């Protein structure tokens, strides 16, 4: 009977009858699993990406178009501005992390990152691992060659090739990433290609205008005292008494009883939350002052089924960050839902007690977790960004947001913030 049920689910999905995040499976899910996975990832970003910034998106897309026109691509790849992380290619889409984007120093540096990703699309590098295993050494060669070809694309598009060097210097380096060459090695090879006398316009003024007024961080929330504040959901979640806690830009986890009990809170997109609620067992609704809270037991590992069914279910669990049955509470709001998860101990009663302590944030809490905004301040004199950062309200943030060694003339814009960040979690 069970086998028959699985086969039925499989057949429905193959005919497009399956759904993911509030809509039928995309048509890509009738072609290949790889294409399907990419399309589902993009849908997940749409469910919970950063606040839309149409002007910035249009600007980044224009630069991508300028590079794509000098590449072998027949059309400009779509660009999605996501939250954390650097830039990556998902299928034929470039996903650019906003946090990293605002740390760049010029339009040419933005073009350099886009050119590197466009080379990955030209070469069909994205998703290689879906069809064949690619060892780290070969991946490093693909990454290194993407840097080098990107210099050529930059020069063809009228940007200085040296922007590739500057962009690499600005992006955060991950020393544990075995699939990229070490940054020093990349820079050394680029030095052989780049003409330091190239004085092509780097478009710094246009870039700064495009990012001015936007947040430095992702506005996902932050820790205030023992609580985590979710500004988009308008909720503050006080952490129960725990022995140890970990905080990130969008989550807070506490441990008690020698790590046997775990309390986690984080946010989900509204559609991801709705799908979780539909799959909760022992589901019940608590009518609280903050509104209705759905409580229940999260499903365990993804069930068996066709490769498509397994892919979709696995991706759901990755979005939920739930791989084992846990007691959860879901507080849904229009823009995002907040999740409370309890594992270990008397989780069933603990989850209800915890949900009852969730409240609306105070004005002070909202203010403290709001990311500082980027403001442009004219340099009072010539000097480096490092020297001129003292002109800004938060000199440390100004030095982190731009290359401290960059030389500015009097009157050039300094990338400053409108206030000092109040929490480590909101604006890193």
């Amino acid at each position: 009977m069970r086998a028959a049920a699985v086969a039925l689910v499989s057949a429905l999905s193959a005919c497009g009858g399956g759904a993911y995040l509030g809509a039928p499976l995309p048509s890509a899910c009738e072609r290949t699993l790889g294409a399907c996975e990419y399309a589902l990832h993009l849908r997940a970003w749409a469910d919970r990406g950063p606040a839309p910034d149409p002007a910035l998106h249009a600007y980044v897309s224009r630069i991508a178009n300028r590079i794509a026109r000098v590449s072998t691509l027949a059309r400009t790849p779509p660009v999605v501005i996501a939250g954390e992380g650097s830039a990556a290619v998902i299928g034929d889409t470039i996903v650019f992390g906003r946090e990293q984007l605002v740390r760049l120093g010029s339009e040419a540096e933005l073009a350099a990152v886009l050119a590197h990703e466009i080379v990955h699309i030209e070469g069909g590098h994205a998703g290689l691992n879906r069809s064949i295993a690619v060892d780290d050494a070969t991946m490093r060669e693909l990454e290194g060659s993407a840097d080098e070809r990107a210099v050529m694309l930059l020069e063809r598009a009228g940007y200085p090739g040296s922007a590739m060097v500057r962009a690499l210097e600005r992006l955060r380096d991950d020393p544990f990433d075995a699939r990229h060459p070490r940054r020093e090695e990349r820079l050394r090879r680029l030095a052989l290609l780049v003409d330091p006398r190239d004085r092509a316009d780097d478009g710094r003024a246009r870039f700064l205008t495009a990012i001015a007024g936007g947040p430095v961080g992702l506005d996902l929330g932050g820790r205030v005292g023992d609580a985590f504040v979710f500004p988009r959901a308008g909720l503050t979640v006080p952490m129960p008494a725990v022995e140890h806690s970990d905080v990130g830009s969008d989550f807070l986890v506490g441990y008690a009883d020698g790590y046997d009990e775990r309390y986690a809170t984080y946010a989900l997109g509204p559609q991801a939350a709705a799908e979780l609620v539909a799959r909760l067992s022992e589901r019940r609704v608590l009518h609280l002052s903050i509104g209705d809270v759905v409580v229940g037991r999260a499903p365990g590992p993804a069930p068996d089924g066709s490769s498509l069914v397994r892919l979709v279910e696995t991706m759901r669990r990755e979005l939920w960050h739930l791989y084992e049955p846990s007691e959860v509470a879901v507080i849904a709001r229009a823009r995002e839902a907040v999740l409370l998860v309890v594992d270990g101990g008397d989780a069933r009663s603990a989850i209800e007690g915890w949900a009852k302590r969730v409240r609306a944030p105070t004005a002070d809490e909202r203010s403290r977790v709001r990311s500082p905004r980027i403001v442009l301040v004219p340099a009072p004199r010539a000097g480096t960004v490092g020297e001129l950062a003292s002109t800004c309200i938060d000199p440390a943030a100004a030095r982190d947001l731009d290359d401290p060694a960059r030389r500015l003339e009097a009157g050039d814009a300094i990338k400053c913030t409108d206030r000092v960040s109040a929490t480590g979690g909101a604006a890193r």
Partner: protein
Amino acid sequence: MKVEARPIAHVTIKGAGSELPEVKSAVHARAGDTLDRSLLQADVRRLWALGIASQIDVSVTDSDEGPDVELALIAPPRIEQVVGGGAHAELAMLRALEGALYDPERVQRIAALAERRLQANGYLRARVGARADVACGRATVTLDVHTGPRFRISALVVEGSALPVTATTFEGDLGRVNVIGGMLELSGFVYELSRWIDRHHGKGWLEAKASDPDVRYDEARGSVSVHTTIAPGPRYRFGALPIDGGDARGRAIAEAIVAPLRATPYDLVAFQAVAARMRVQLREVGQYANTIATTDTVKRAVEITIQLRRAAP
């Protein structure tokens, strides 16, 4: 070398990256050092390790002041063109080398990757070669590609399975991989086969195993057939499922829930569902349950002891 064992007069580094600090620090030979072949060889090794030169020329010329040492770093040429090979999309990764520095090892590595990609797409006999012509600091890479026929699966037979096998049981990608008419991805098939054996174990065929797949190629037809046999072995049953500890109420709850499973064919998923239901009901009377499973290969039974305990006050 006559000049050896004399103090070096000058050390000069020129060519690619000679201004880079790491290049300067890689060269340890200094004016005044005694000229020694091993000293220069060590410098060349350090420079080579930086990966920025395709050739390093060392010259020593004698002068009145002593030997002058010159280390010349020749930059790799830039790849101007990648030609040949046809229009296969799998070769795009080689064409995307245009504009990059020519590095023979890199080109061979990526050619091997393109070859594997073609093979994964059914061109099981594909071979991809690449050679370069270098002139005036520019390289032209010429591809030599032989794809051979595109093999498709004509038969995929799994015999002996105790669980019903469907057309998509071992599917690696939607209608494209490891299905009849699609491409063979052998490692993926072996993985799915091992999952299928796991499914047997979960349904009570704890001794189930599969033979190595027998893969046969028909070169003329461009087809491939795969045969494998599953030996499910005996089906195990649940044992007596004894209940220990707890109080009378807890034991009554556990007994009512697990009793229907006794001596029935072992089914892991069914037991997990029963255990979850049991835990919920036990919680309501302040008790918890742990389970300890052992396998009796003589009686061919899975014995699961259910240990109850009271919740801490």
